[in-house]
């Protein structure tokens, strides 16, 4: 690929240069007050009959109850869903209207695949920093159980033409175009439109490319379950979660799982690859239903409402990769976003106290870390002198992540932001500076969104 002229990193880099954030006029802070989510449920489980609107409303009402926001006019609410019915065009606004918030609270929907939740946080935090709003609720929801099912293209065209037909003969003529195969419904899937490969198959390519072992993936999955279970037992989620439909914990959590048990699972992705397939149902996240919300505010608003201030939303960065032509793995965008974000803020991996790297698959996390530790990748793809660096694994997903909790696509960002903000606040200061956390979320379409939070 070094045929792109002078830059070794590929496309012409128009991102702000390092340190440019400091050159911006002094903005006010956007703080994370807290969050609320419902337990995440494996698809087909406790939330089978719950719609996205039901779950988002429940998550909102729990947040409102926790922070006493009844009848409050919030500056703006933004949320989204990846799998969304067309009738839910105003999903977030409808959820607000069904909640205990003031009906005068505006809302908008946003969608950026699995990065939806984090992007709502960043967008709203920016509005707060700019002084456009004083308070905001960011969120996300997804249901793979109550997923929209579309009719086939053939049937859709017939139905639309039928609507336009004026006479009976015209109508019969349109109907005569219908073929039996047109009646098969078009269910959503996680396949990439441009490659036809599922997300798991894409990751299998990346996992093999970075030579990530089955053992390393199973160990990450084991730690995720172990850490999440320990967090529940310690009461960590008591002020982050509100039970829903009889669930009080994430239903995917297997507190009793072991490396031995994980080792017995058969591979499900990458079976056609030459190398031994390594990705199992144990080290991949299952389809999940759930919703999450995060309360953001200016410092003044939080103070005037006697609300806690856990952390600030420092900065965020989005990246995308060309996975279509195989230049990078589908879920590798964060490997580029994080170096850019840290450079802009004058930070390195050593300056981070908590890493929250979304576990779409264990292989995703490990491939990203492997890329950062790779000299070649650092030089040729990141334009650095060598490897970007390595992280202290004891700082990684310390209270569990998606492998254990599950991953209702748009709800994962809110889960991570609220949990990380709480951890940062509890940590307080590190070496005389506020504790710092990094969030990294990969998304379909070869995208990724990352962010930095700092303790208050």
């Amino acid at each position: 690929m070094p045929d792109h002229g002078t830059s070794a990193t590929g496309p012409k880099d128009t991102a702000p240069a390092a340190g440019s954030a400091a050159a911006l006029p002094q903005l006010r802070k956007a703080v994370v007050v807290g969050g609320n989510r419902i337990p995440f449920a494996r698809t087909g489980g406790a939330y089978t009959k719950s719609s996205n609107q039901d779950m988002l409303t429940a998550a909102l009402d729990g947040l409102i109850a926790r922070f006493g926001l009844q009848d409050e006019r919030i500056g703006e609410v933004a949320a989204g869903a990846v799998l969304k019915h067309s009738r839910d065009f105003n999903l977030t606004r409808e959820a607000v209207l069904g909640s205990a918030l003031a009906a005068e609270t505006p809302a908008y929907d946003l969608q950026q695949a699995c990065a939806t939740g984090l992007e709502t946080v960043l967008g709203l935090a920016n509005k707060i920093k700019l002084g456009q709003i004083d308070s905001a609720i960011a969120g996300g929801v997804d249901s793979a159980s109550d997923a929209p099912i579309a009719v086939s293209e053939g049937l859709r065209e017939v139905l639309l033409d039928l609507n336009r037909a004026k006479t009976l003969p015209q109508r019969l003529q349109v109907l005569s175009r219908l073929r039996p195969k047109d009646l098969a419904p078009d269910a959503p899937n996680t396949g990439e439109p441009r490659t036809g490969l599922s997300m798991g198959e894409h990751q299998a390519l990346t996992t093999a490319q970075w030579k990530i072992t089955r053992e390393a993936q199973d160990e990450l999955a084991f730690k995720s379950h172990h850490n999440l279970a320990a967090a529940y037992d310690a009461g960590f989620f008591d002020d982050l979660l509100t039970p829903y439909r009889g669930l009080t914990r994430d239903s995917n959590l297997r507190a009793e799982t072991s490396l031995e048990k994980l080792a017995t699972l058969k591979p499900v992705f990458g079976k056609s690859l030459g190398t031994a397939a390594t990705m199992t149902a144990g080290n991949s996240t299952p389809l999940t239903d759930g919703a999450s919300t995060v309360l953001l505010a200016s410092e003044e608003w939080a103070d005037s409402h006697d609300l806690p201030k856990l952390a600030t939303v420092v900065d965020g960065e989005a990246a995308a990769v060309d996975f279509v032509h195989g230049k990078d793995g589908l879920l590798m965008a964060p490997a580029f976003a994080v170096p850019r974000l840290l450079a802009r803020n004058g930070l390195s991996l050593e300056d981070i106290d908590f890493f929250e790297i979304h576990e779409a698959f264990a292989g995703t996390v490990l491939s990203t870390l492997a890329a950062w530790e790779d000299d070649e990748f650092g030089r040729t793809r990141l334009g650095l002198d060598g490897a970007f660096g390595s992280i202290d694994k004891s700082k990684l997903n310390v209270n569990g992540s998606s492998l254990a909790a599950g991953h209702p696509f748009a709800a994962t960002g809110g889960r991570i932001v609220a949990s990380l903000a709480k951890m940062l606040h509890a940590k307080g200061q590190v070496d005389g500076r506020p504790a710092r956390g990094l969030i990294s979320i990969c998304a379909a379409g070869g995208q990724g969104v990352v962010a930095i939070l700092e303790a208050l």
Partner: protein
Amino acid sequence: MTDTYIQWVSKGLGKDIAKRLGLPQPVVLRRHKPGQPLVEGPVLVQGAGSGADELASTLLSWHLDVRRHAVPKEKLGAIILVLDELTTPEDLEKPVLAAAASLRDLARNARVITVSRAAAAAAGPAVAAARQGVDGLLRSLAKELRAGATGNGIVLADGATTTSPSTLGALRFFLSGRSAFVDGQFLTVTADAGRLPADAEKPLAGKVAVVTGAARGIGAAIARTLYRDGATLIVVDIPAAGDHLATVANEVHGTALQLDISREDAGQRIIDHAIERHGRLDIVIHNAGITRDKLLANMDRGRWNSVIAVNIAAQLRINEALLASEHFRSSPRIVSVASTSGIAGNRGQTNYAASKGGVMGMVRATAPLIAAHGGSINAVAPGFIETEMTARIPFATREVARRLNSLQQGGRPGDVAEAIAFLASDAAGGISGEVLRVCGQNLVGA
């Protein structure tokens, strides 16, 4: 849980049949609604002394229709029997028999309230006999009253007068629909403390109150009642009940605190939440409780210990934290939910009754400690209350249980809540260390 029998005997054929067969004839009780008059109909004040005169003029200042002498055939809203100057049992005759002449003129849901003095040993044998006589008199009279009428008494300890703030507060409570399911009970005014609210409809205005076990049932009703009375609410329940808790919190415009009260640091967590989020803490209602019923012969360690841990040990620990906190020093109020099981006992509930008996002991012993901060602590002991829990009792057992009191019906969670709201108010500042039963005067047990 609706009581369909009450509907059936309240009108038409059912009423007629019940009357002919001598079946129980419970009536729909007059319960407090905002804006409702304190009492419906004239109030007859019986008693000759200066205490009775003072009380009568106070009632007049409340714009009540006060009678010092009965008007024949006039329906009465209440009879107040002032017996604060008894010196011998013979002194009872005149006022009691005078009141007796008016009993048939009591309206539906009327009130009979005695005001007497505590039968302390120091008073001397004859005086104590006269005063203690009021106890038996009132409890028996309450059992004779019909059609939702109740009889309750106010006992004045040394230092309390007929017009002490808490005497008047208790009088207002007993007269009103707030005490609908309180029958045959006494409240002792222990001190000339407390004050009547500026706004009788919002007696808890400006107060920050914590209610534990607030996700459902009696706890949720307490939260709603305190909210109606003007308090700012912090509702607490175990994290697993968080969804119901959130619903209650949003209904009462409060904050939800998901917390297991049996945690070591529960008291501090409650105080921190109250101070950080609401700037103060005035009232704590210990309502959270569990049952793990089993005959004692079959009792296991888990059932025994969990009930003791949640129902009494947690309250003791939280109270310790509250009493030690500088944030709980401005006329603080604690009200605990006990149970008639802890008084009269209940087969299969040795653990529960031990814990609830414990609550009453704790309340008595904590009263002098909290008095140092101008505070008070009391307990409310509910009898048969129509809740999700009692709805699970088999039909026949439930039907018998709910009729076995003077009002011949089960109480509602709101009835318990009303008693708690009163004891949590400034008007109850001179009442401490007491247990008030909300049981419709259970016929069995104490």
